[in-house]
């Protein structure tokens, strides 16, 4: 889970930075979107790189979810009896919502792909017109609301997940703990805010 999680995190940072190109205007953004399909040319033919990346990411999601399912099953089996007196959790909210947040994110990823990759749910839905597709989706308040909820889930998931990955990989040490926790919170805030700037800007009419 640690390795696949960090791989997906790396992708999300690049994805978030790419999204911000929308503020440079329609031509810039559409050109960037088009370039994403041709990375690796002429060594790789056409959209090969794109498909390799899609395959790796899909594999990461599947392995991440499978590990989460196996771990949850084992954990629920190990503690079948709850305490009559409810335990006061010492762990933070982010830790508490890992499972539900993860499921929410999985559903969101499906929705997100139907919205902007296959364009099935997109109101504009013109291939190559990335800028107009984005604007058409986020102009609808409830679409933006879905993205806001999902990105808050993402931030919480990263806040616990990043630190937890450092623990799992044995990278955490007493001298580094504050830095690792700080980095986890920093990445969580950066990605949540970075991803939400675009839909909120569209809804507010700053991008049209």
């Amino acid at each position: 889970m640690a390795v696949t999680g960090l791989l997906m995190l790396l992708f999300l940072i690049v994805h978030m930075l790419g999204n911000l190109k929308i503020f440079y205007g329609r031509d810039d953004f559409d050109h960037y979107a088009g370039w994403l399909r041709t990375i690796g040319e002429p060594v790789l033919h056409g959209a090969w790189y794109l498909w390799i990346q899609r395959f790796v990411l899909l594999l990461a999601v599947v392995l991440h979810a499978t590990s989460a399912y196996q771990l949850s099953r084992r954990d629920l089996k190990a503690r079948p009896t709850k305490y009559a007196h409810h335990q006061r959790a010492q762990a933070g909210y982010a830790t508490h919502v890992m499972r539900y947040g993860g499921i929410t994110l999985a559903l969101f990823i499906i929705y997100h792909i139907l919205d902007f990759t296959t364009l099935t749910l997109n109101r504009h839905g013109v291939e190559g017109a990335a800028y107009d597709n984005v604007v058409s989706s986020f102009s609808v308040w409830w679409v933006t609301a879905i993205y806001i909820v999902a990105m808050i889930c993402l931030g919480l998931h990263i806040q616990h997940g990043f630190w937890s990955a450092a623990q799992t990989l044995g990278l955490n040490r007493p001298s580094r703990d504050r830095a690792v926790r700080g980095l986890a919170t920093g990445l969580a805030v950066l990605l949540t805010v970075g991803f939400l700037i675009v839909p909120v800007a569209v809804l507010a009419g700053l991008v049209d």
Partner: protein
Amino acid sequence: MKLTLRIWRQAGPAEPGRMVAYEVPDANPDMSFLELLDVLNERLTLEGDDPVTFDHDCREGICGACGVVINGQAHGPRERTTTCQLHMREFSDGDVIDVEPWRSVAFGVVKDLMVDRSGLDRIIRAGGYISVNTGSAPEAHATPVPKPIADTAFDNATCIGCGACVAACPNGAAMLFASAKVTHLNSLPQGAPERTERVLNIVEAMDAEGFGGCTNTGECTVACPKGIPMDSIATLNREYLRASLGRK
């Protein structure tokens, strides 16, 4: 102090259990929690009832025999304190206190508040040792140990194996216990010969007992009466990765 205890009563491993309320009108703030149970048991015995079974031994907070979940917290509300060292002055007159046994599928209830913690012993047997010639123990100062390493090893050696980490863990995992043993012995030169097998065998034994997996919630460190830190779990993971990758 007048207190109401709601205690988990279970006649045997296969019997159904339930919470039973008992009034203790004559509790003293200077009593330890175990002494409160003694007072209750004395009365139950005189009344011809079955006394409440609970584990205890040294009553000095160093043996790891005692331990119950008090109001949803392993060893009760006081930080870094075993049940025997918890005094009734931590509670108020008229309180209703819930007392339950450690809960994990690897800790079966023997009777009432007593659970079978032999799973922890089997983890120790798998790797909680070093190979030395006990016939002629070597001079301790012959093996120099740097101070920070000695401190880490000692901090982890303070684990008394009470099982509070397992009880507090929402996954019933024994990671903090296992990591204390691995960190203690793997950081010392005396533990070096078995460094690789130790961590592999301990993790294998832990899995075989049916303990849950770690999700890094940190609940164990809050419950631990000896303050074993989350860093020990990172050390166990580091040692495990190193051993799995076959590095010597």
